[in-house]
């Protein structure tokens, strides 16, 4: 009988924090500036420079810790991780090993069968990102850009509590949502503001000991993570089945080829010679600071869902989708604050917004239209200044360029024609031009009106109020 195996997975998740300045100096963290323009003596490792902790980094780390049920370390320290590489200007990374800021947390995820499972968080620590190396093949040289050097990161290390790719994705989505709700990061896997390394081992079902694990790097999407987990599970199972040993090593996932290859084994592992950074004083988290951060924690998803249900008359499904991302919930609430029409706002988000996101492959974080403009659009339809098909047309432009709908409707002359005289004239022309339909109508074919309404709208270039067209047609017929 074939043996049954189970996969044991733990994650190391790096999250780039959304601070304006770097972790140990005042340089900007903004993305996309010219090489080495956002640097100073500190983040380029100049002799004599010294790091000073950005308090916002500590506050974000504690906030994430509180939201994931961690114990906050009241006396924490930074340690130096020593290794030579040109993207690391000091040749040591300032990180936390001995006294990380958060420990012993957990998050709850939903399992396939609809149950709830708790995934343990071993620790969360703060550290600095490295610079970026650019290899110039043409000139046969390497260049380094230190703009990213010193950008703040937190690393969230889970316990080996996950057993499948689904659980891993559920855990990551849960983490992402918590962190986005906190505003601590936008958590984009593709852009690297959230990066997950997968520690995986395989063992026989019922075994007490863990198998030998590998660490998988370079996973840039949920899909890649799922594929890598499947691939690595198979690779390790095959090894065990054929009586070979799994080697403890770091592997790099190649998503286009759908396979991984070994980067370095445990034997080549460097000795990082960690020790407390003497340039940074120990972090003492006071009761006041902790209480202050606690009091500023936002409303998280489950609380929001409950409140929406109580306050707004919108379907449960809509609530689930809207609260499923911080950006969507913000758009909903901010638009609501202006126009006070939950149902209409929700309809726009659930309908056209989701449709266009899918069609145009836009991520929720990249939505451009503002709550102000959505509220204006709703007001335009409420006042019947534009009809619903024009509104959809305007919304699509808003979706692309966040145009002011009032201005756009005015400029393009899209306002519904409410001048009865002008409309009457068009209706008369349509009746004159379609004798067959008129006859059909008189013969009791109600459908013929629909055709005539359509012809009138077409002649009016869609700008007529359909209700008025209907009324006029019936009068004139």
């Amino acid at each position, binding site marked *: 009988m074939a043996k049954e195996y189970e996969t044991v997975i733990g994650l190391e998740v790096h999250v780039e924090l959304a601070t304006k300045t770097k972790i140990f100096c005042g340089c900007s963290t903004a993305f996309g500036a010219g090489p080495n323009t956002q640097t100073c003596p500190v983040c380029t490792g*100049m*002799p*004599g420079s*010294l790091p*000073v902790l950005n308090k916002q980094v500590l506050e974000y780390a504690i906030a994430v810790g509180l939201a994931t049920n961690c114990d906050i370390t009241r006396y924490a320290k930074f340690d130096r991780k020593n290794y030579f590489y040109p993207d690391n200007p000091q*040749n040591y990374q300032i990180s936390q090993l001995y006294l990380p800021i958060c420990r012993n947390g957990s998050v709850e995820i939903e399992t396939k069968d609809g149950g709830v499972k708790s995934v343990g968080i071993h620790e969360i620590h703060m550290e600095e990102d490295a610079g970026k190396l650019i290899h110039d093949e043409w000139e046969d040289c390497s260049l380094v850009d230190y703009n990213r050097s010193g950008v703040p990161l937190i690393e969230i290390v889970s316990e080996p509590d996950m057993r499948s790719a689904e659980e891993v994705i559920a855990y990551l989505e849960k983490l992402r949502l918590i962190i986005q709700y906190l505003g601590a990061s936008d958590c984009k896997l593709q852009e690297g503001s959230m990066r997950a390394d997968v520690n995986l081992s395989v063992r026989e079902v019922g075994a007490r000991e863990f198998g030998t694990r590998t660490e998988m790097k370079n996973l840039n999407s949920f899909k890649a993570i799922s594929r890598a987990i499947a691939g690595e599970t198979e690779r390790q199972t095959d090894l065990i089945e054929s009586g070979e040993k799994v080697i403890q090593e770091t592997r790099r996932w190649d998503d286009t080829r759908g396979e991984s290859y070994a980067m370095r084994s445990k034997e080549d592992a460097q000795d990082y*010679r960690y020790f407390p950074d003497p*340039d940074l004083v120990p972090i003492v988290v006071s009761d006041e600071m902790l209480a202050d951060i606690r009091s500023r924690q936002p409303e998280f998803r489950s609380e929001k869902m409950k409140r929406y249900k109580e306050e707004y008359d919108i379907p449960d499904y809509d609530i689930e989708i809207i609260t499923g991302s911080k950006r969507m919930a913000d758009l909903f609430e901010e638009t609501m604050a202006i126009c006070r029409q939950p149902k209409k706002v929700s309809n726009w988000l659930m309908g056209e917004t989701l449709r266009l996101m899918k069609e145009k492959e836009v991520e929720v974080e990249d939505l451009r239209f503002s709550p102000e403009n959505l509220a204006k659009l709703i007001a335009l339809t409420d006042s019947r200044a534009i009809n619903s098909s024009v509104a959809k047309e305007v919304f699509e432009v808003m979706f692309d360029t966040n145009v002011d709908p009032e201005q756009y409707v005015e400029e393009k002359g899209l306002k519904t024609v409410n001048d009865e005289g002008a409309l009457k004239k068009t209706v008369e022309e349509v009746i004159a031009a379609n004798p067959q339909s008129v006859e059909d109508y008189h013969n009791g074919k109600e459908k013929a009106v629909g055709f005539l309404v359509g012809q009138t709208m077409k002649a009016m270039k869609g700008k007529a109020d359909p209700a008025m067209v209907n009324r006029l047609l019936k009068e004139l017929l």
Partner: protein
Amino acid sequence: MSITDMTAVELAAAIRAGTTTSVEAAEAMLDRIEKLDKTYNCYVTVDREKTLAQAKEVQSKIEAGELDGPLAGVPVAIKDNMCTEGMLTTCSSKILGNFVPMYTAEAVLNLQRAGAVILGKTNMDEFAMGSTTETSAYGVTKNPWNTDHVPGGSSGGSAAAVAANECFYALGSDTGGSIRQPASYCGTVGMKPTYGTVSRYGLIAYGSSLDQIGPLTRDVTDCAAVLEAIASYDVKDSTSIERHDTDFMSALKDDVQGMRIGIPRDYFGDGLDGEVKDAVLKAADGLEKKGAVVEQFDLSLTEYAIPAYYTIAAAEASSNLERFDGIKYGYRTEDYAGLHNMYKKTRSEGFGQEVKRRIMLGSFVLSSGYYDAYYLKALRVKALIKKAFDDAFSKYDVILGPVAPTTAPKLGSSLADPIKMYLGDIYTIAVNLAGLPAISLPCGADKNGLPIGLQLIGDCFQEKRLIQTAYTYEQIRGPFPMAVKEVG
């Protein structure tokens, strides 16, 4: 009296009074450096034009009434491990042989705000690792009292420049005695302040948890004035401390009535030279006659300070010096095959023997499997040493002892036996481990005419007690002779 023989405070007063100018003083000093430094080699870098341009600017500010402090217009020498914008800063190492910083160290900026004029950068042991200034990549500095002897180290260039009147005062840095010991060997005053008093921003780190910048001066008055100018709370240095008691010149009082002075028996045992011992105890007698209460006591743990210090300082240094890799600045080897070979060759060629020794020692004590046995144990010893001092300061205001076991050794006699050289730091390094302030000042000379230093150690933030005691002792002792009387 020649203008170059004046103390810093005397010169500033003369400039304020209009009897001389900053430019005149700078020119006189630059001329003297030109004549003498071939012999003593106190400086790595002197830039005549920059110095004179600064002096002119400072002089006009003094005349406009914008600068009137006790150091305004006075030329200063800076140890070559403090960054100076636009001026070579080498740490006396080949690896930084071409390094021109883009910013100035906070302590030096503080001096410039007080109207200092930088004469140049002084020689030192490479990366401040050494006790003789012989590990410099730019030649040894010679003791102005006797050129066959070392000036001490690592701030040997600064101490010798003060002793030879090649500057009016100097800045040094002290990680395990690097200000106090050369001050003692060269017959000058040198002070290591409480850790956190002077910003380390721009000081190229050796042992970050122990490093502290301080003055080297001709007398205690200058020492108080310079310390007052450089002490500041700096948000750029996380270990900087906000203090509101840095008016150190107010402590220049000739009075030790009732001052409780403790003499640690541990500092007067085997290894202490008889002449040094006699001179130091004679100084204690003098203070007792002036009303101080002098008493002997057991400090304990003295013998553990040296291993603890060399473990902690080397560990920090091994990491601090990783940034010197040939990538971003400084020396890079000519020929190499790939990245790791470049690192290896650059660092092998760029660092000297003593620096390599300490990098290896530090890397070893931090490596996995040895961390607890060495580094953590050293930190525990450090905490115990601090406690021993806390106990002592519950009974005494000031601890009095020698600075070094002997007077300045002969050139070339120290590096061959590094352990012996390390043991020479026995009276100074516990002060750094405990973060305490201490001052060194001349209290006599041996039979060969080499100066002997007296060390006064205070509790944290008690610099004023040290300055007051040192100033009082200076009145008892009278003027100390000059090392170089005539310039031929």
